[in-house]
């Protein structure tokens, strides 16, 4: 419950503050969001598998976002579009996590 409340509070803060993100930075933010969604789903999966750990989840969340942003930055420096690679990898993981959650919930 507290977790969902936290999510809601963050969203409300963003709506109230309404931060402006520059055109270049928006790509990093989007990638960080994708990484964060992946981590969250991973967290939900771990919770359902009874292996959830607060510390691991927070670390995974932060490190995933940081790595995604760092990779995009490196790609920009090398003039190689690593964004697609990250999106693909994270997308696959999101699907895997969703599938695992589904199996847990519905016993597929």
């Amino acid at each position, binding site marked *: 419950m507290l977790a969902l409340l936290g999510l809601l509070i963050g969203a409300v803060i*963003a709506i109230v503050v309404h931060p402006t993100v520059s055109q270049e930075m928006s790509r990093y*933010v989007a990638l960080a969001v994708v990484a964060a969604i992946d981590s969250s789903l991973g967290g939900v999966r771990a919770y359902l598998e009874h292996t959830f750990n*607060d510390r691991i*989840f*927070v670390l995974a969340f932060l490190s995933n976002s940081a790595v995604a942003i760092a990779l995009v930055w490196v790609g920009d420096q090398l003039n190689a579009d690593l964004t697609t690679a990250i999106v693909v990898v994270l997308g696959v993981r999101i699907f895997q996590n969703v599938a695992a959650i589904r199996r847990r919930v519905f016993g597929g």
Partner: protein
Amino acid sequence: MRRPSIALATVLAVLGFLLVTAVSTARASKRVEAPRKTQLIKVIQDRRSSVDDLDQAVKELQRQVATAQRRANRRSRDEAAAASRVAQLSLAAGTTAVEGRGVVVRLADSSRQPPNGADTGAYRIHDSDLQLVINALFAAGAEAVAVNGSRIVATTPIRSAGDTIVVNFRPVTPPYSVLAIGANAEQFGTSEIAGRFHRWVSLFGLGFSVHQSSKVSVPAFTGGVAITTAEPAPLPAPAGGAG
């Protein structure tokens, strides 16, 4: 269910914050881009139509240029024809200095002292003598003739004023040098007039000589003639400086 920690809530708050931020940013950029796109399309269309207009204008101007060019060509052709006609006419009228192969005839009064009772006139060159020589030179093919630098033209009088010969209303002094371009020295030398002068040379000691020259320069007639305003354009080939 384990105790959900504050850390988890915080992390999820960050997630919510990022999510909303990313979505609103993406929407905003889309909002910014859409009008710019339509603006750019409009600019492109405007430019295209103005390019079409300019193309049209270029074609029109090219047509005008071609027309003007044709007109200018026609005019310059007319001008060139007029100029060459003026040059021909001035050549014929004698208002152009000319040079070419010709004959130089020198006439001089006798150096002998006429004997008492003799006709002193026979020992001098008269205006009629010059007239005879010049006529004979013309008969021998002369095209341009000058006496002591005075050009003989259609209206040139050769007269005498007392003892002085006047050509083109200007006195000329002996010895007389008659330049005749185009005259044949042989034809003139064997003419009846030349024979007459040769006799007078031996009889009275008059000066008379005939030379063929490959280059004789005859000056232009400088007096007023009917054509007073038109000046011949300098021709590259036979004309010397107008003088």
